[in-house]
Every structure is written in C-alpha cells, then in structure tokens.
C-alpha cells in the first residue's frame, strides 16, 4: 500500500469542511445559523491556508475575518433579528434561476481549474514550511527580501514592495472607521437635537 499523504488527507478534511459549511450557509434561511456556518467555513479555510504554507495569512484569516468581521456581522444580525426577519424565504423561481446560473458558473470554473496541466499536482511536498511572516512584513514595508536572490532581471520587478498600498489601506481603514460610526449613529428626533434648537 502506498504511504498516506497526510497533507492531502488534511487538505481533504479542511476542504470538505469549508465547502460543506459554505453550502450550508446557502441552504439555511435562518440568519443566525448562517452566521454560525460562515464562521466554521472561514475557519476551515484558514486551515487550508496553513496547509499551503501561508501561516501568517492563515492566522490573519482567523483573527480578522473570523474574529473581527463575524463578530460585526453577528452584532448586525442580532440588532435586526426579530421575528419576521429572522428567516426570509426565497421564492422557488429565484432558487431555480440562482442554482442554474450558479451551476453553469461552477461548471465553467471547474473546467478552467482542471484543464491546465501546470496546475495539476506536481510532486510530493517535502520538509517543513518556511515561515512567511518576516518576508511579508518586509514586503509591506517596501523591501522584497524574497526577491533579493532573484537573478533574472525580468522577475525582479516589483522590488519596491507594497508600502504605498499598505499606507492607503491604513488610511482607508481609518476612513471606514469614522464613516461607519457616522452612518450607524443613533437617530435623533428633530425637536430633541441641540443644533435644531439653536436655529
């Protein structure tokens, strides 16, 4: 018997969990259960990231996606989850149309994914994964240490790293923070608000 490839086994487990809970998100109509399944699906995906050698991205996925985003989502769910809204049924016609179009899209994507030989399994993965955190951090700071040893000048492009996008994203997050706090501010009655009285 061939030796079991543990990487593949764990890939199978995490992939089935991720896809299974994603389908569960689609099929359930209860909004809180949807959020619960989404948490599990995203957490399983972070397992896939760890398997692909992306340890830092996997940890970020757990921290930001699963932790941050979904706590936010659950907040929203609970603020709006009252009787009539908790499960809104979709009509059969929409289901049929959605599944048909989705199925076609899936068929196209699967065809594309399996048709290219270079993407097929290449070799047995040997050894422990090289940690990526430092290289990613240096990349975000504008120094691509992973490309320093690249001899081919064509492949040495993008040496300046991601400092500018990083800064833009930082400012963007600040704007989002302020903006969402503004959007979600409590509604004041016109006669109660102070500036209305000053007019």
């Amino acid at each position: 018997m061939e030796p079991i490839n543990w990487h593949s086994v764990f890939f199978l487990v995490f992939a089935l969990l991720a896809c299974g809970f994603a389908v569960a998100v689609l099929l359930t109509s209860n909004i809180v259960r949807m959020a619960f399944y989404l948490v599990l699906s995203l957490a399983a995906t972070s397992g896939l990231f760890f398997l692909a050698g992306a340890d830092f991205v996997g940890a970020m996925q757990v921290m930001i996606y699963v932790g941050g985003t979904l706590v936010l989502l659950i907040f929203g769910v609970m603020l709006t989850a009252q009787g009539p809204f908790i499960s809104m049924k979709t009509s059969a016609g929409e289901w049929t149309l959605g599944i048909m179009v989705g199925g076609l899209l899936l068929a196209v994507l699967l065809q594309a994914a399996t048709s290219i030989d270079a993407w097929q399994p290449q070799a047995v993965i040997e050894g422990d994964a090289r940690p990526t955190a430092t290289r990613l951090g240096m990349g975000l700071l504008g120094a691509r240490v992973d490309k320093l040893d690249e001899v081919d000048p064509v492949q040495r492009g993008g040496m300046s790293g991601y400092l500018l996008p990083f800064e833009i994203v930082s400012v963007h997050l600040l704007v989002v923070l302020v903006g969402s706090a503004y959007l979600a501010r409590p509604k004041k009655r016109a006669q109660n608000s102070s500036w209305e009285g000053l007019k």
Partner: protein
Amino acid sequence: MNLLTDPVGITHYLIVGAILFVTGAVCMATKRNALGVLMGIELVLNGANVNFVAFGSEYLRPGVLGIGLDGQLIALFVIILAAAEAAVALAIVLNFYNNHSTVDVDRADELKG
C-alpha cells in the same frame, strides 16, 4: 485518483475556491436578507483568497515560478478590505433598518421609476 495518497496541487485549491465563490454568488443572488447578501460577499472574497494563496504557494508547484509572495500579500489586502467592507455595509444595513424597519433588500425600491 486517490486523494489519500496523491499529493494535492493548485487544481484542488482552485476547485475549493470555485465552490466557495459560486456558493457566495448564489447566496448574494437568492438571499432576501441584507445580512445574507453580506455573508455571500464574504464567501466570494474568501474563495478569491483561496486562489491567491494557492497561486502564491511555493509548495504546490515546487520549482515553478509562481506569483510568489505577491499572492499572500494580496490575500492580506483582501482580508483587510473585507473587514472594512463589512463594517461599512453593516452600518448601511443598520441605517436601512432604521429607515424602513426591515432588512429585506427587495424593499429598497424607492429609486425605481
């Protein structure tokens, strides 16, 4: 092929990414609850992330020049922007709920001619 003994390649990750993407897209299309649509968006972004990480991985295609670390960096940006997107979208949904007392996206039709 036997999944227990053969190594996995980029194809396998792409299949998972495709399933997540399509599930999310159908979720966005069929859910009437605005928060359900949001969750669909999260799934779509997550499916895209799986592809980025797979193409950037140095273990799935040893020796072949992929997009390298760029894949993981872009995945990081996607995660950050997804968090930002969720915060803003949630604020919009709350505002919508305050104004219409519902989160049914089909009821947002004032601009319809």
